[in-house]
């Protein structure tokens, strides 16, 4: 029996529900090609960072100015070049190259925290051939005077701003730390989001005990992390007119299946590729197909959302009841 793996995400018809999330792997055309060959249905390019654009421009200007016009023998220290690609040029080239190299949809990603002049890059990405845009919003409200409402307003303004500048579909990738995730999700869709990508994994600081310095640290995801996206995808499924993507914690076919069952249109992977290699794409897809065949599912469409909050036999598991049940049944190893 053949299973129909096709799905639709942001209006894009995908051959299966397994996507590669934004990571450095997708910037490399050769790797991208191998990912496609392994079966990936679409890929999100690594993010173009708002800060990076400004930072690079500032650094180049600083390097050209620092120490200059001070000493008669060394009025400057670097040769002048008129051709610095401190803006999005390199990124736009990556989009074009990726589009030429592979047949799967390519989603560009823009990482920002505020509405700024750099929003014009969204349009440039569209013009460069991106099939859709993923807006990766990362904002740490370190200012104690800032309220949750203020933060949400920033997000909504940003999404609306980007949406206005493009005609391709727009996905919004979020972190999970909102007091009313569902409400925010719905309002983002109202503001123009065609899909939500749940959830962003932040690189939070760590403390180096030797140097006594705070340093950003990169952790690869672990399968346990999937439970948070599962919960919110299950809650949102059926209540918003937008696609849903699960990301963070999908490491195998089981993870992908769970995401789909909860209501995701697609599942995105990265960490497992770093751990096990690109061939893992094929293994996950094969495993999913095997499970579906064994369970006699006909298609992914049939599967999607079948265990959402609306459709699952025990909705309390996605709500507060889940918490009580887990806590009372837990026995730690050390106890």
């Amino acid at each position, binding site marked *: 029996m053949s299973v129909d793996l096709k799905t639709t995400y942001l209006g894009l018809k995908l051959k299966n529900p397994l996507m590669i999330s934004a990571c450095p792997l997708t910037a490399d055309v050769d790797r991208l090609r191998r990912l496609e060959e392994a079966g990936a249905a679409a890929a999100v390019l690594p993010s173009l960072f708002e800060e990076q*654009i*400004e930072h*690079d*421009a*500032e*650094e*180049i*200007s*600083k*390097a*050209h*100015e*620092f*120490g*200059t*016009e*001070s*000493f*008669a*023998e*060394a*009025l*400057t*220290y*670097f*040769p*002048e*070049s*008129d*051709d*610095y*690609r*401190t*803006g999005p040029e*390199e990124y736009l080239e990556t989009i074009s190259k990726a589009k030429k190299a592979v047949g799967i949809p390519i989603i560009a990603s823009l990482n920002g925290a505020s509405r700024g*002049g*750099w929003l014009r890059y969204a349009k440039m990405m569209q013009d460069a051939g991106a099939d859709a845009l993923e807006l990766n919003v990362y904002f740490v409200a370190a200012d104690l005077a800032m309220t949750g409402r203020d933060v949400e307003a920033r997000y909504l303004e940003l999404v609306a701003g980007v949406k206005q500048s493009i005609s391709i579909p727009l996905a919004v990738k979020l972190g999970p730390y909102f007091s009313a995730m569902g409400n925010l999700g719905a309002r983002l869709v109202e503001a123009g989001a065609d899909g939500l990508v749940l959830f962003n994994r932040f690189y939070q600081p760590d403390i180096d005990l030797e140097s*006594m310095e705070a340093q950003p640290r990169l952790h690869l995801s672990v399968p346990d992390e999937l439970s948070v996206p599962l919960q919110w995808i299950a809650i949102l499924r059926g209540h918003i007119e937008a696609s849903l993507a699960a990301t963070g914690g999908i490491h195998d076919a089981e993870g992908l299946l769970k995401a789909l069952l909860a209501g995701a249109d697609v599942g995105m992977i990265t960490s497992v590729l770093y751990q096990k290699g690109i061939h893992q794409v094929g293994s996950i897809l094969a495993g999913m197909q095997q499970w579906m065949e064994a369970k006699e599912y006909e298609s992914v469409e049939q599967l999607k959302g079948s265990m959402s909050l609306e459709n699952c036999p025990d909705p309390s598991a996605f709500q507060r009841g889940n918490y009580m049940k887990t806590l009372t049944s837990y026995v730690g190893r050390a106890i």
Partner: protein
Amino acid sequence: METRRFVTVDGNEATANIAHLCNEVMAIYPITPSSGLGELPDAWAAAGRKNIFGTVPDVVEMQSEAGAAGAVHGALQAGALTTTFTASQGLLLMIPNMFKIAGELTSTVFHVTARTVATHALSIFGDHGDVMACRSTGWAMLSSDSVQESQDMAIIAHSATLEARVPFIHFYDGFRISHEVNKIEQLTEDDVRAMIDMDLVNAHRQRALSPERPKLRGTAQNPDVFFQAREACNPFYAACAGIVQKHMDKFAKLTGRQYHLFDYVGAPDAERVIVVMGSGIGVVEETVDKLVPEGQKVGVLKVRLFRPWDSRAFVAALPKTVKHIAVLDRTKEPGAAGEPLYQDVVTSLSESWAAGPHPGPLPKGEGTERSLPRVIGGRYGLSSKEFTPAMVVAVYEELSKAQPRQQFTVGIVDDVTKLSLDYDASFSTEKDDMTRALFFGLGSDGTVSANRNSVKIVGENTPLHAQGYFVYDSRKAGSVTTSHVRFSPRPIKGSYLVHRANFVACHQPQFLERIDMLSTADPGATFLLNSIYGPDEVWDTLPAEVQKQIIDKKLKLYVVDAYQVARDAQMGVRINTIMQTCFFKLSGVIPPDEAIARIKEAVKKTYGKKGGGKIVEQNYAAIDGALASLKEVKYPSQVTSKLHMVPPVPAHAPAFVKDVLGMMIANRGDDLPVSALPCDGTFPTGTTQYEKRSIAQDVPIWDPKICTQCGICSLVCPHATIRLKAFDPALLAGAPEGFKATDYKGKEFPGWKFVVQVAPDDCTGCGLCVEACPAKDKEKVKHKAIDLEPKVPVLDRERAAYDFFMTLPDVDRSKVKPDTIKGSQLLLPLFEFSGACAGCGETPYIKLITQFFGDRMLIGNATGCSSIYGGNLPCTPYTVNHEGRGPSWSNSLFEDCAEFGLGFRLAVDQQIKYAHELLRRLSSQLGDELVSALLNNKQETEEEIAVQRARVTDLNKRLPAIAGGDAKNLLASSDYLIRKSVWSFGGDGWAYDIGFGGMDHVFASGRDMNILVLDTEVYSNTGGQASKSTFRGAVAKFAAGGKGGRKKDLGMIAMSYGDVFVGSISLGANPMHALRTIRAAESYRGTSLLIAFSHCIGWGIDMAHGMEIQKDAVACGYWPLWSFDPREPSHPFQLASKKPVGAFKDFAMKEARFAMLARSKPDDSARLLALGQQDIDKRYHFYEQLAGVDRAPAEAEPGNGETKAKDAKEVGA
């Protein structure tokens, strides 16, 4: 045809443009002030800009000017149109090939920014000393006197040389023209094509060597034919001047600008004429323009083609009425009958007035029937000395005298040989409708770039003529810049500084008490001051001397808080566009609205191309904010201030420092007479201590509670402004309030106190110490044992503390543990407060070496950063200890420093031998015990050296009582009985490139020499040109497309001799390794090479993090730490670096030198970084294997070191 446009450029850009278009090959080498001439074509070539032949010129950096000349010679012989650019000693290095090129009648043009040749001192500034040294080479010499002419003569030279077959030096005055920004009409590419005759180009190619039409050139000739063959070129020289005039005429037809070999300007019936060449022409012409309408019969004869000298054209150009001629030479030939131009004039006149076959008498009616004019010669403008209309008037007046002075000088006061002319400095030719502005700024505040931009705005957008000339500091940290800017409805001919300003701007309020900015202000001028004080408060913050000048001259005073405006616009300390906006508002040169629009345009052009949208917006905000902050100040009619200007040096400074150096510090060096200056270039050391520049905003403050007494802060301090001392607690009795001390940790000085003290007025605030400090507060980790704090609130306390600190005795050198960081830092540095860049990576090594060996050091220093911060007047950082001992230092040249140092060694060894011989001869009178002790002390430790010093003192006391010449002679040589530490210091440009041949020879000498290479991987002093030390993938000048080749492994080359000690060290990565390797190198009685990794401003890094970058470099294998000690019998090679961790790319991307290429040419960058990683991996793999090699016993046999070993025995080692 393209339309010509007016551009505002400097002489170098004007010339480089022509050179780029006319040439196929450029073999170049950096030297000030011509470096820019090569940098521009290199950058243009990297961007693919083509010449008129449709190809991109090949711009190749060579290892020296000698190498460049050789490559040029070869390229010419093989048929390429080829050029180079140089100046000063660089031109002198080309002379051997220049003789060949001319001897072979080869068409080429060398563009020379005429610069002073180093004699009693180096000078980077302009005169004709270098080009005059080439007179005998057989090159044509064509001079430009302005920025416009530097372009025009460049193309005339390129065009004429092809026909004449005589090679050309096209020269113009260094800095005064090479760096003056002026408005010129730029030639189009079509113009250049029209001037270059392709038939002549093809003829040049046909003369080239080719196997298709084989020939041989460069034979050796014998007495039978050489002479005749040498004379065979005469027809070409005879024709050359005519050809030049023909091409000048062709140029005139094309552009309307008519030049002649000699051009006369002035009264048609002039009786007094000045003959002059170069930028001085404009000054004389400006004076003539004023004097002739006043009825004076004066004129100026401009010399353009100096060689081949056309006597007939010269005489013909003189007015027939001339009776008195003054020839001005911008060079000095000591001992000559007269300077070169003078001699040619005298010869021409005497030959022309006499009947003779050559050049032949002039036809009747051309003036030679009259009596021979009287000619005097004089010198002016050496090393860019100011040359003004006032001085020109003095020359004309001298010509009116019955007995005018021969060999006169003008512009200085010569109270020794009394040759100088007096002049009335108040004489001026400048008209009131000319804007004459002076801007005082700091190097870091963008003042110069803003003024450069203002000149461009006015020059290119209005009918006004514009001139900008910028004067820089001799120090690199906290350097003061002065911008001299003129705008005028007429062409601006005078190439001299602004002496009568109608606009003065002080961009830094701290200058008020140190720089006399208003002495040049005209009455009624505008004074714009950047100050945090508003119009109502600012008056009382001005020193009384400043207030008096404002009142006396009735200046219009304006104030702007540019720093606040900059902060509001998030611009940091960049106040350039703010001050520029205020200037346009106040000066009225062009309507302010238009000016602001143009400034914004320029900002967009500058930053827009670098992707800086945000920076553009910030600048716009600053420009808009500037006008709101600008306020006029109403001031009283009386001086009210209690503040006074600070004297340049303190009252307790020695007389020479006060009377001579102090004048230079106060920018009044021009007023010093000849007698004030040493006749042979010898200056006292230890004078930076008197120049309290107080340039830091923040200074490091020590917290004894947290301090672990590691000493790293002092070790890394580039300016020796953080000092450690251990002292007896009893000495604390006189300590001022606020002086901090804690208990000394360590067994050397039990019960003593310990202090870390900053010299607050000498610190540059670089922050290296803070970044390096490892001691953090337990409760507030960001607080360290050394933190930067704002200086002003702590200044009085820290000044008093430092003064007290300096009264504490230095520790007994024999008691410290010099192999530890702390021990090394308890030793007195004998290199302090240099003018190096804030955060310099080189100077900590030098300071450390002087701490170890300074009291017995001789240093030969290659030209470069280390010779500039080491020996650029006014003040010198090498200093003395309390006994008056310290390093004796000298700079010879760029290329010969290793040999220069070797010369020191040879001399010292010979003196030692002589002293030993005398000791032996006198042993019966001195006693065998003393003689034997003096001869046999190995002096390997501080104690042994101290004992030797005491014995020499004893010897010196005894010697006068002994009769005979031997005792007297030994007294003169006994100093050499104390072991000397001989060093050659220099950078990688010297060691890897220009000086490598000599250095290699010193390696082979086996002599007891120490060579310190301060490796910044770039020619730092001349602005960052690539050297063979530059790492793959780094952008540098002359490697605008990224350095393609692998970095040379200098250490391995030295190691291959087997008996050379080599150390590759990094103070930031492993200070213990560095200091032990330095000590081991010095202790080795053969040749030692230390390659010291030195971070640099030319890397595009935050200098405060220089030491961390060094650490990262070592960690990723970019800079391996190792040593090779020939004394080690089995494993002389020791690898001190661990296996590389992390990728080269990650390290590289933190530095602009690498990151720039990644941004401009990502594919090239990726390829070069990958190759760079391979270089690192392969090198480490190789070193790892070397570390395991057990040296074969045969290697231990004396080879090159044989002589050394023998000599060492003789000198008591």
